[in-house]
């Protein structure tokens, strides 16, 4: 029931994640961050099997940070996504694959373009203008199809995101304890 959404605007990517961490019949915390910053201009949001999610996200984070330290350079969002996808592909034919679905939001400083990728546990990858994983997709994709246009300003993007969150609050049967917004642009990753 975790919510992760993504949306690209003209110069930025907006990533929204729900804040409830649920195990069984209890809510463990209401301020859970379902993202990891893997590079100065790239964020990975995750959802899926408990444990696999954080382990895989932190594995990606460690590898990308090591690359940055060794080579004194930042990998572009497409390059990072290729790495993430190839690791999931390797995991898929192992004894116990990582059951993690991911959204990668990044800003390529070299070409000054925002990128959003939808990647799932089967190692599919799609570059998309907007995305969602899980049940949230059933409700939000239709709104995004209706209201999204190219070259949105940040405020317009945030308004569309608000519409999506309102819809989820109305229609999802569980309280997901609100949404945390992350914005990725030329200045890096920040919380809205």
């Amino acid at each position: 029931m975790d919510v992760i959404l993504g949306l690209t605007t003209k110069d930025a990517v907006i990533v929204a994640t729900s804040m409830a961490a649920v195990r069984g019949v209890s809510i463990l915390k209401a301020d859970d961050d379902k993202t990891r910053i893997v590079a100065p201009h790239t964020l990975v949001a995750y959802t899926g099997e408990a444990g696999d999610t954080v382990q895989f996200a932190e594995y990606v984070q460690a590898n990308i940070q090591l690359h940055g330290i060794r080579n004194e350079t930042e990998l572009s969002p497409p390059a990072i996504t290729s790495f993430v996808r190839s690791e999931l592909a390797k995991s898929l034919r192992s004894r116990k694959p990582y059951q993690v679905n991911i959204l990668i939001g990044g800003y390529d400083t070299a070409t000054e373009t925002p990128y959003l990728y939808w990647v799932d546990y089967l190692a599919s990858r799609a570059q998309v203008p907007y995305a969602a994983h899980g049940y949230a997709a059933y409700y939000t994709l239709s709104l995004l199809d209706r209201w999204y246009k190219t070259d949105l300003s940040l405020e317009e993007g945030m308004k569309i995101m608000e519409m999506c969150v309102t819809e989820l609050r109305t229609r999802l049967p569980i309280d997901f304890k609100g949404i945390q917004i992350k914005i990725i642009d030329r200045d890096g990753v920040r919380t809205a």
Partner: protein
Amino acid sequence: MADRYSFSLTTFSPSGKLVQIEYAFQAVNQGVTSLGIKASNGVVLATEKKSTSDLIDASSLSKISNITPDIGMVYSGMGPDFRVLVDKARKSSHTNYKRIYNEYPPTRILVQDVARTMQEATQSGGVRPYGVSLLVGGYDVDNGFSLYQVDPSGTYFPWKATAIGKGSTSAKTFLEKRWTEDLELEDAIHIALLTLKESVEGEMNGNTVEIGVIGPASDHLLGFEGVKNVPGPRFRKLSPREIDDRLDAL
């Protein structure tokens, strides 16, 4: 063979030198001159194609090779050692980079990889150092055009312009006088030919001189057309005709 030669053949002398590497440098300095020049909009690599006989089919031999579509390499020293390094660099650019990140490595990272290979030959069992110095020219989005030299020891340096091999000292002095910050690619090719002329012993024409250029993307060299967002390679070799035209203009 590996267990009988698990000790390195490159060992320190009492004065603290690695004599095998010094000897490798000798092999490089006996080799034909090669040079590289970085311009504001490209890199030129040039070398003489010295043949021992007029019966040799010069067109079948290639001393300047591309490693990725945007990176090229030339050498001074032992040709066979160069071939091995080219093959390793080409393979490594795929297995250690492109097959992970789906893009070709930037120049510096490829150079570091080649340098590591050459260093390993100075500290491993049963092998000798590579008898070549390399000049690697390339382009990548983050760093633009760059030129690197790699030595038999595994050291690598970035250069604005340099020469290696037999006539390298005088060639470097020549280049020092002529290199400027705002050189364009055509000027750099012109200077490269002038510099080579000083060290070439025989005739200098499109068949005895090889020039490689890393410049603007050449979409016509892709081998296909009609696919969007696929830039052509930046590395290309000048044909003998193109070289002759420029030699006439000298």
